[in-house]
């Protein structure tokens, strides 16, 4: 299940931030997006995940194959770790959460309310959600934020297993997580030139 983006322009708050971005993500491959704060990594990822549409250009590949993980983990503090994962598994039509718990060493915490977890543990739970969805294309925004070195290794291992199974991953990250097989895409050359918009929204910007 490959993902292709052709010459897309993405906008945040109605203003283009990146233009002319093209990328191809084949099964078994990973791409790491790099670029300074504010260049539009999150906007690009949200566009590819299907949360917003690009201003120009087109994205090919089934939207149903992608799963998005953003800055927020989508965790309910009053549900336990196991209940949170079981809910997302059920939403995606699956039921087995034990592999995801094992991959991120969450079994000892499975019965604990998610509100009682530390920031790093919450992030691990958010990443474990990717495994229970069973979708092949991961679209990840800063997946390693608040993870310690050991957990970063855990995450890198999970990504490697995912790639080996024919999945793929597109992620924005500032740190080197030791994924040598990942291609790096520097977004700095794609920064959009300041252009006036010619549509109705312009009056409100």
């Amino acid at each position: 299940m490959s993902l292709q983006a052709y010459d897309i322009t993405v906008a945040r708050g109605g203003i283009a931030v990146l233009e002319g971005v093209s990328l191809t993500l084949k099964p078994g491959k990973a791409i790491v997006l790099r670029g300074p704060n504010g260049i539009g990594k999150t906007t690009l990822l949200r566009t590819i995940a299907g949360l917003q549409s690009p201003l120009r250009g087109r994205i090919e590949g089934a939207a149903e194959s992608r799963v998005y993980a953003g800055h927020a983990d989508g965790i309910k503090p009053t549900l336990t770790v196991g209940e949170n994962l079981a809910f997302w598994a059920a939403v995606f039509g699956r039921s087995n959460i034990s592999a995801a718990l094992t991959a991120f060493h969450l079994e000892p915490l499975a019965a604990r309310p998610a509100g009682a977890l530390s920031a790093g543990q919450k992030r691990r739970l958010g990443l474990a959600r990717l495994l229970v969805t069973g979708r092949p294309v991961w679209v990840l925004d800063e997946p390693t934020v608040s993870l310690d070195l050991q957990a970063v290794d855990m995450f890198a291992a999970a990504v490697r297993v995912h790639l080996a199974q024919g999945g793929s991953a597109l992620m924005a990250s500032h740190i080197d997580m030791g994924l040598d097989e990942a291609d790096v895409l520097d977004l700095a050359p794609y920064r959009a030139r300041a252009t006036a918009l010619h549509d109705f929204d312009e009056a409100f910007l």
Partner: protein
Amino acid sequence: MIALLVRDLRLAMRAGGGFGLGLSFFLIVVVLVPFAVGPRPDLHASIAAGILWLGALLACLLSLDRIFALDWEDGSLDLLVTAPLPLEGVVSLKALAHWLTTGLPLVLAAPVLAVLLNLPTAGVVPLIGSLALGTPALSVIGTFGAALTVGIKRGGLLLSLLVLPLYVPVLIFGAEAARRGAEGQDYMTPLMMLAGITCGTIALLPFASAAVLRVTLR
């Protein structure tokens, strides 16, 4: 789909879920009204139907901003939109969960609280009937309002202003059915109108709510 409903109900029941919020507000309003208007049982009997309906409507309004705001804050809403569920189904289930945790308890509590307001016995059945028919419309309309204001910090005021005008027809026909029942008149006509409004909102508004959510999440 069922998992979403189960999760919402479970969240509502746990600490800080706001399950009793609407119900306790309803109780407070109904208990305080007799103190405010004075010890006049005949007056209580004549205003009871209206007060009970108004209390139920405001109690419903109180918990609307929780429908989407909490899911928006913790990122669940983004993930639900990209999940393999139709968004129209998601908003319908959210409305159903809101009705089960807010509307249904109000319907069940109304006959007990009606005694406090000296509602004539003949009016109890039409009151329950009109509330049972009308509160689903309140939840569905409220879900639409919540979808419009999701992402706005402290959008509660805006939500109330947007939703209240849409609540007026429900209040008019609901309270009219309950009042006519209490006075021993025929109450079928307003009850039918109320049922029509409820059916219409349930059939149409989920599509509007889903479309609005897609725009606000962009």
